[in-house]
């Protein structure tokens, strides 16, 4: 457990992806089974046991330490698990001759022991067991143990990165692990044996496995002359969430239906209305959308369903989920991913027609003769077949007709050509140092737009934060600007000069606007980034908050197409 704890500790401080990967590889290579398997389960969110309550931890520590000293310490550290881990004193020595004085010192528990014990130990026995573990572990071990058993473990790596590290032990890509992942359970011994060349590839027994998705590259102006329009098919790029619907029969003949997110997370539970529609054996790749009266709703509407934890009948009625399919990966036990796109497309249309289910339809192809025609369709989807759904279209996808379905992001076969982003001119207000390679640069900028102040004048209100969209040279210049125009400092954050006569205008590009209770302005942008740096523009000419509110209203208009939906 101590080794795992030290790995977590180090990962928590390491901002660089490649360095995290190296730390993970080093751990998986050296930690024994089943320790590394349980570690992998902890990092991918696949451990389950009854969690300990904070009150239990507090009781344990106050039995050992002066409660007043603990209170001061907790106040200082600000985290119960960490304060307890640090303050935990050595176990009291039993008096010579007293019962237990010959007992050997407590053994450092393995992660496997912790996980297995938590799975079956009785509630009454739990506190004493935790105290024994705390006695045996070092402070990092105690910290990780307490975070783990209270369900607050935040690893600082994605499940994907952990799988990437495991795969790399045998020179595989992460997708190779994804392919077999859903048939496996902690502590994943067959998986490690396979990647290390000591065992067979684990055969997935899951009749509805996740298949890693194929992703696209953004297309740039200079790409078009190299590409032959006749070699590609085009589809609308829908502004929903990418999902995979998988269905099949298990060995007992029971129907299995799964909905996976694009990272392989099983999200079936959140969409029972869609899961019911998976009556087929096969796998569809498509976009999850909300449809009302056969019209696709904007992402803002979908967001409202995604934000709800409880799936109530009312939610299902007001936000009916739908899948617009654009690929068929498997059908009736046959893997279709090796077929060319054009052929899969034909199979897809026949397959979905055979389902005859209102929740699933096919994303239409967008006909085009040349790039100019496609550019026109992208500019005005409503006039090019998108019709009333055009507001939920965020561009077009280009797919090479001959391309097989390749997991990951191969360059060349698929391209995305997103619609032009929204743009506003905003004023830089605060700057924060970045992480990792950028830790000495002020690279994260909070920007604001104008609004009326209570006293009748104009004031800037922060509306978002952007940390990319500029080149290294521009970053160096922005960093210099921040350092030379600082008016206040708050730890790693600097407030810069801004006002009607001073300040720097940043043109911010973004994909949409949502309501936000977290921002003072009441709005939040989707994917804001710096479009251009307007060294030349006076701050008085920056945009006003109304510009964002108009975009917000446009996105929300479809929410109430006749009926009122409360609690929006």
């Amino acid at each position, binding site marked *: 457990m101590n080794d795992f704890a030290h790995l977590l500790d180090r990962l928590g401080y390491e901002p660089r992806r490649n360095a995290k990967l190296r730390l993970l590889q080093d751990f998986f290579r050296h930690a024994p089974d089943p320790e590394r398997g349980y570690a992998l389960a902890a990092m991918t969110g696949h451990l389950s046991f009854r969690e300990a309550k904070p009150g239990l931890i507090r009781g344990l520590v106050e039995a050992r330490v002066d409660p007043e*000293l603990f209170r001061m310490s907790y106040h200082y550290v600000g985290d119960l698990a960490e304060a307890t881990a640090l303050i935990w004193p050595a176990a009291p020595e039993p008096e010579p001759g007293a019962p237990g004085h010959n007992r050997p010192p407590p053994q450092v528990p393995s992660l496997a022991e912790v996980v297995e014990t938590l799975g079956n130990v009785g509630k009454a026995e739990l506190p004493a067991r935790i105290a024994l573990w705390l006695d045996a572990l070092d402070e990092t071990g105690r910290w990780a143990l307490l975070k783990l058993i209270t369900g607050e473990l935040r690893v600082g790596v994605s499940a994907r990165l952990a799988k990437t590290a495991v795969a790399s032990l045998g020179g595989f890509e992460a997708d190779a692990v994804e392919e077999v992942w859903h048939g496996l359970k902690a502590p994943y011994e067959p998986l490690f044996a396979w990647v290390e060349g000591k065992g067979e590839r684990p055969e997935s027994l899951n009749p509805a496995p996740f298949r890693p998705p194929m992703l696209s590259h953004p297309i740039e102006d200079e790409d078009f002359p190299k590409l032959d329009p006749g070699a590609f098919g085009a589809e609308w790029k829908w502004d929903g969430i990418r999902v995979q619907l998988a269905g099949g029969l298990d060995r007992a003949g029971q129907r299995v239906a799964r909905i996976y997110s694009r990272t392989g997370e099983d999200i079936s539970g959140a969409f029972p209305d869609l899961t019911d529609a998976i009556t087929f054996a096969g796998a569809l790749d498509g976009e999850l959308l909300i449809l009302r009266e056969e019209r696709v709703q904007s992402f803002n509407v979908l967001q409202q369903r995604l934000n709800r934890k409880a799936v109530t009948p009312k939610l299902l009625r007001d936000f009916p989920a739908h899948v617009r399919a654009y690929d068929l990966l498997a059908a009736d036990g046959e893997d279709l991913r090796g077929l060319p796109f054009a052929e899969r497309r034909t199979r897809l249309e026949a397959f979905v027609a055979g389902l005859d289910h209102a929740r699933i339809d096919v994303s239409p192809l967008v006909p085009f003769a040349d790039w100019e025609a496609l550019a026109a369709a992208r500019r005005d989807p409503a006039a090019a077949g998108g019709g009333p759904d055009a507001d939920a279209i965020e561009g077009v996808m280009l797919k090479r007709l001959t391309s097989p379905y390749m997991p990951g992001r191969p360059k060349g076969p698929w391209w995305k050509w997103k619609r032009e982003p929204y743009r506003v001119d905003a004023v830089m207000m605060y700057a924060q140092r970045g992480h990792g390679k950028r830790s000495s640069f002020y690279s994260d900028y909070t920007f604001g737009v104008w609004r009326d102040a209570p006293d009748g004048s104009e004031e800037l209100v922060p509306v978002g934060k952007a940390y990319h969209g500029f080149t290294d040279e521009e970053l160096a210049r922005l960093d210099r600007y921040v*350092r030379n125009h600082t008016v206040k*400092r708050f730890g790693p954050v600097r407030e810069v000069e801004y006002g009607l006569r001073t300040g720097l205008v940043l043109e911010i590009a973004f994909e949409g606007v949502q309501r936000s209770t977290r921002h003072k302005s009441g709005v939040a942008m989707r994917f804001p980034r710096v479009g251009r740096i307007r060294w030349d523009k006076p701050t008085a000419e920056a945009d006003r908050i109304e510009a964002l509110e108009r975009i917000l209203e446009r996105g929300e208009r479809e929410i109430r197409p006749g009926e009122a939906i409360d609690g929006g």
Partner: protein
Amino acid sequence: MATRPTEILSLTREGLYCPAGDFHVDPVRPVARALITHGHADHARSGHGAVWATPETLRIMAVRYGEDFCETRQEARLGEAVRLGEVTVSFHPAGHVLGSAQIAITQGGCRIVVSGDYKRAPDPTCLGFEVVPCDVFITEATFGLPVFRHPDARDEVRRLLDSVRLFPERTHIVGAYALGKAQRVMALLREEGFCEPIYLHGAMEKLTELYKREGIPLGETIKVVAAERPKLGGRIVLCPPSAIQDLWSRKFPDPVTAFASGWMRVRARARQKGVELPLVISDHSDWDDLCRTIRDTGAGEVWVTHGQEDALVHWCGTHGIRAKPLHMLGYGDEGEAEPDPAPATAADAPAADAAGEAA
């Protein structure tokens, strides 16, 4: 009847003052006669009339402030009792940094020990702490909370070396205070068998040379030349804590930023500073050693200064020892933050930033 402790030492604007001997201890403003515990800039300032300190501390002050840092100076010999007015004064090793001393002041049968900053953990660069029995013990409380328990510094240095092995192409930049901590880290690296040259930020050079002249082996050290930074992959570079996120650190190849400080035991503190490899190495006593030392001195009364006074005062109360906080101003609030001895330049280091980034 023994003289009352508050008659021997009182708190003034300048710091602790002994009327019967007419001197201050570690005064924060220029005074006629100053007794100095150690060379850190918040304890040892320039501009006093007469200064009395260990020879090492006097030499440190001369390196920092120039030979004219005071009018007259007197070397204190450790353990030797000297009469000063109506009191007797003696210096004893404090184990904090090279030359650091506790100052014992005795009058009328009552002895007060001003410990200055001190630690009990072994340190190859300075003499170990010596327990001085006394009636009143004035202790620091930089790490005066039971969450602060410093691990063995050798293990922390091994973690640094492990990281160098795991990332052999990256520069490891270690933030460490220029006086004491930096040299201790170097000495510990040498004890672990690290024999490559250690690279130093310019601000570390003079004090490191002084340590070497004092006979402390630190191995080969090389001052970082600005143009050479991109070539220092795989090297260990020591710099003042404020430099780890400074423009200066940018030109190293993909640096790993480490920070050697007792504060690194608390994750939020390390994260706040953007530290990637926190090394818990402190020149102050941890909680257990603060409590142990109070007991070892046999003092019936304890005055607690800079740091987390409340917890230590509470602990004394529960152990039958009279205690009070002594709110002295002018010492590094952040404990290990050594205020820059040179006046901050207005252009890029206003006070707020010095507190926020150099701590």
